[in-house]
């Protein structure tokens, strides 16, 4: 499945990249996959971890079962993991380089902004209609439980899951 490697170099930081990934993966089989691919799109959001990798694995499974899933996952993750490792090694070797540290310091300040913006990216799809109040309350409660009550993140997430099971279904707009 050489299409997998050809697809990968696209910047795929976010879910909007998924249609391109799907096209690269499925090629001429795209129409054959269409219904189940749509299901795979939805299920990607429900799979823990990195959405793009789950999607590639799902489409690989639909195309060639387990070998397809394994090849898709490896092709989607290995090249970028190697690049990240090389850059991390560079960052580590620059610890005593004054010039590099000055540049990294600015980049790290930008990383804080990226982290804060990601909060909105995560919450935004749910922030609509009647669900807005729920987003604010659940988000604020998680924030306060972690910061003020010092409850570990994993326990806050488990608590959120329990509360989600008890809450009435969100009305759809």
């Amino acid at each position, binding site marked *: 499945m050489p299409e997998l490697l050809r697809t990968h170099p696209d910047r795929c930081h976010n879910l909007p990249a998924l249609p391109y990934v799907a096209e690269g993966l499925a090629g001429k089989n795209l129409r054959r996959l269409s219904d189940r691919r749509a299901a795979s799109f939805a299920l990607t959001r429900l799979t823990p971890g*990195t959405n793009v990798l789950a999607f590639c694995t799902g489409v690989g499974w639909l195309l060639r079962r387990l070998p397809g899933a394994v090849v898709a996952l490896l092709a989607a993750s290995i090249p970028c993991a190697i690049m990240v490792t090389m850059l991390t090694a560079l960052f580590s070797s620059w610890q005593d380089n004054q010039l590099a540290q000055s540049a990294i310091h600015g980049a790290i300040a930008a*990383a804080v902004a990226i*982290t804060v913006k990601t909060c909105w990216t995560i919450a935004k799809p*749910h922030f609509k209609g009647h669900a807005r109040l729920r987003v604010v309350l659940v988000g604020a409660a998680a924030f306060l439980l972690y910061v003020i009550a010092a409850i570990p993140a994993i326990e806050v997430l488990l608590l959120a899951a329990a509360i989600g099971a008890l809450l009435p279904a969100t009305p759809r707009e």
Partner: protein
Amino acid sequence: MNIVLLYLLLLKGTITAFAGLASLPVIQDAFVFQHHVLTDKQLNEAVVITRSTPGPVGLYIVSVGYFVAGAPGTIAGWLAMITPAFLIIPLVAFAGRRMEHPRIKNVLETVVIASAGLLLAAAIPLSRDALTDPVTIGIAVVSLALLLLTEIDTLWIILAASVISLSASSIGLLTHV
């Protein structure tokens, strides 16, 4: 740190998150606060590295693995990153329609929203480490505004921030580096 333990701790982060950086609070808890094998600066650097290379944001786990245990840590990070992806196979094969059940969707939505709140909380110690003078505070504020209001790629924002910081340092505005 033992590689198996490293893998399991990283996996705890990835398996409980439904978006790239959403695992950051769990990772910060485990490695920065509990085991003290990672610093907030390194965690911030991992985010910078991931946003400067192609690939999903969740790759920062690989960077964290490297910072904690070198090359073997990279492999542990990569394995922790890819392991949850296999969960989609049973989802596609068996549970597809059941996952559309309103109550299950409700649980997942609540977890995702809570992870956004946790990520905001995790940004506090990260900003304490990173925003130490007016220049870096300015960079963070302008970067956030650009990220929220424009479609500029994060790579350009990171590069611009580096250049500004380097320039500020060369004229003596950054004294702590």
